[in-house]
């Protein structure tokens, strides 16, 4: 019995940590958030094998597990890494593996693994469609709109229609209008896709697979929040040790101390939650969707609390752009809403 990370898992996350620490420090994140290109970082994480993570070696991938994807997502959140991941490395490979035809798998998986194609994902028709959205299929072509498309700067998209189907749509397809949407989180591009009789390639086995695909996307976003919240807590603790007011470190005041303790007390158990939920995709696949939804709902609440409290511990400095803490604050806020807000997730699991 061992409920902890393996040496390989530690090596994997260490390699991503080292890469991001060196090549994606806050100054680089800012640059990309301000509109700079992330090509070199995308190339770098591709070299590290991130898009290939969930792809079997027969398709040029490294064939790791859902838990490994969560661990990587956690590291990406910790560094607010401005790179595609949740759609391109998690949702798309999983959709192709579970719902795609062998031909589709052979066509696309090697390209994702090699970084030759980037996939976005537009699932909003199935995760809470807002007015003006919804995707309908006629004669194999799509009409309608899907919003909040993850990893928007992509070559192709996995699209959920309003009737339990999944499709691949090329970014340059006829009748496809792409509109980037600005959000508070400038580390991750999202956008809207508007379809007008747009050619699409259906994934033949979508029906039973969607729950798992969505769950894995949720787990990855939730893991990203865990990482981001851990960073904010670490920063708050550091700041509380260094910042002096009234002649002593603010971390020696009981109020500040207890704010930090409450963050840790809420956050630390979510790590085991992530391990268990991530591991369940292999160990308890029937329970995985429920566990992933519960994990995302829970970490979203904890993350919101940590984001606010860590900012408060930083005092006015936390409110400025100087220390950049807000990138993590906003990333947590972004993850909270995407692919299911806490209320919706709790509704999903209460059946």
């Amino acid at each position, binding site marked *: 019995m061992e409920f902890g990370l393996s040496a390989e898992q530690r090596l994997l996350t260490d390699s991503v940590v080292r890469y991001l620490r060196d090549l994606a420090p806050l100054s680089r994140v800012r640059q990309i958030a301000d509109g700079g290109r992330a090509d070199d970082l995308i190339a770098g994480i591709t070299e590290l094998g991130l898009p290939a993570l969930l792809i079997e070696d027969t398709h040029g991938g490294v064939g790791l597990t859902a838990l490994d994807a969560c661990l990587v997502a956690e590291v990406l959140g910790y560094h607010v890494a401005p790179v595609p991941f949740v759609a391109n490395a998690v949702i798309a490979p999983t959709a192709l593996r579970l719902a795609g035809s062998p031909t589709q798998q052979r066509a696309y998986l090697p390209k994702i693994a090699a970084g030759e194609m980037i996939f976005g994902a537009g699932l909003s028709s199935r995760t809470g469609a*807002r007015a003006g959205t919804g995707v309908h299929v006629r004669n194999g072509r799509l009409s309608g709109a899907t919003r909040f498309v993850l990893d928007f700067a992509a070559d192709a998209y996995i699209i959920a229609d309003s009737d339990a189907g999944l499709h691949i749509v090329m970014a340059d397809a006829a009748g496809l209008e792409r509109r980037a949407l*600005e959000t508070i989180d400038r580390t991750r591009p999202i956008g809207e896709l508007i379809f007008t009789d747009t050619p699409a390639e259906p994934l033949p086995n979508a029906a039973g697979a969607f729950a798992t695909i969505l769950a894995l996307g949720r787990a990855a976003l939730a893991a990203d929040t865990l990482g981001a919240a851990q960073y904010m807590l670490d920063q708050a603790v550091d700041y509380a040790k260094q910042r002096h*007011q009234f002649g002593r470190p603010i971390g020696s*005041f009981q*109020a500040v101390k207890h704010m930090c303790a409450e963050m840790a007390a809420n956050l630390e158990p979510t790590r085991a939650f992530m391990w268990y939920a991530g591991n369940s995709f292999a160990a308890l696949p029937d329970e995985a969707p429920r566990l992933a939804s519960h994990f995302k709902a829970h970490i979203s609440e904890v993350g919101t609390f940590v984001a606010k409290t860590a900012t*408060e511990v930083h005092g006015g400095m936390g*409110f400025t752009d100087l220390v950049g803490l807000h990138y993590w604050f906003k990333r947590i806020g972004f993850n909270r809403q995407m692919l299911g807000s806490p209320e919706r997730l709790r509704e999903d699991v209460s059946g």
Partner: protein
Amino acid sequence: MDLTYGPEYDAFRAEVQAFLAANRAHAPADARPKDPASIRWQARLIAQGYTARIIPAAYGGAGRPPDILKSRIIAEEFASAGVSMGLGGQGISMLVPTLLEVGTEAQRAQFIAPTLRGDMVWCQGYSEPGAGSDLASLRTSAIVDGDDFVINGQKIWTSTAHIADWMFCLVRTEPQAPKHDGISFLLLRMDTPGIEIRPLIDMTMNRNFNEVFFTDVRVPVTQIVGKRGDGWKVANVILKNERDSLSNPNAALARLNALRDIMREETIDGDRLIDKPAFRDRLMRIEGRVMALLFNDLRVLSSQLNHGQDASLARMVVKLQGTELRHELERLAIDVMGENGLAYGSNPYLRDRGSWQYAYMFYLGLIIGGGTSQIQKNIIAERGLGLPRESKLATA
């Protein structure tokens, strides 16, 4: 108990309404410093007695007698009409009352009228990177050299520094004195050589603040308000007023109603958001809290009108409760809008010009600023409930 204002005030309210109906076309959408339309509107409001109301006419004010209800009626009617109440800013809200209280006659004559008119814009230089909660530990120094103070150091959180003509600030003039006794309150021109202003972008990505750096900045010794070493007392004449204005429950009510509108209009999977019981429960919970603060506010107002009514604790909790409430209210709005609630900047699906995310962050700033929630709790516990003060060392 009588919640009516009485006939004199009903008449006054009608007068304000009539003024608004006749003049609102002249009002700027948002009064901004140095904006000619705003300055014209300001002059009209002073003439009418709707701003600078109780400041003597000799100093350019409206010279009306103090009347809390009339002031409130003006505020209520302007708010409900959505019309600008004229120029704000720390010169008008903080420096003018300070000079009225402790300035010299010459200072009053020189500064108050142009400030009220909007011809002289001020910024405030109090906080420093190392002196936030513990403001009295500030280290920007002013050393006398001939007829001047020579200032070196740094200020932060200086809103409007980049457009201000003048700054009022706290500096350390007596480095040997105990920390509260070594501070002086100075006035200085922002175009004095040696001042550098750098924008301070905040988490909303706006330039709401600046940093200001001083290198051998020379200020005539006459530009002191109060005596040398009395700066802490001078600043505290009005510091306490600042906190109340940050958390107006009427504004919270307006936001709540705006959120309810969104929930009635927007849908998810075809259902109106107002029909989602979990969200509705949260909305009603917030509404109860808004009501508590609205009525609490009425109680505070009444205590200012009626002698013998003590509402000091009721007043003391306003900033803490009001800012936390707004932060949560804005968060609820984001949650009900879901992914659309993330919209910011140029996003075409913004509601209310993106103000929900903006206010969600801005109110977190207010929870921190103007006396953090932690300090508010100390004040409530010590001054409101009479719990023992910690030793000086431990007052964070």
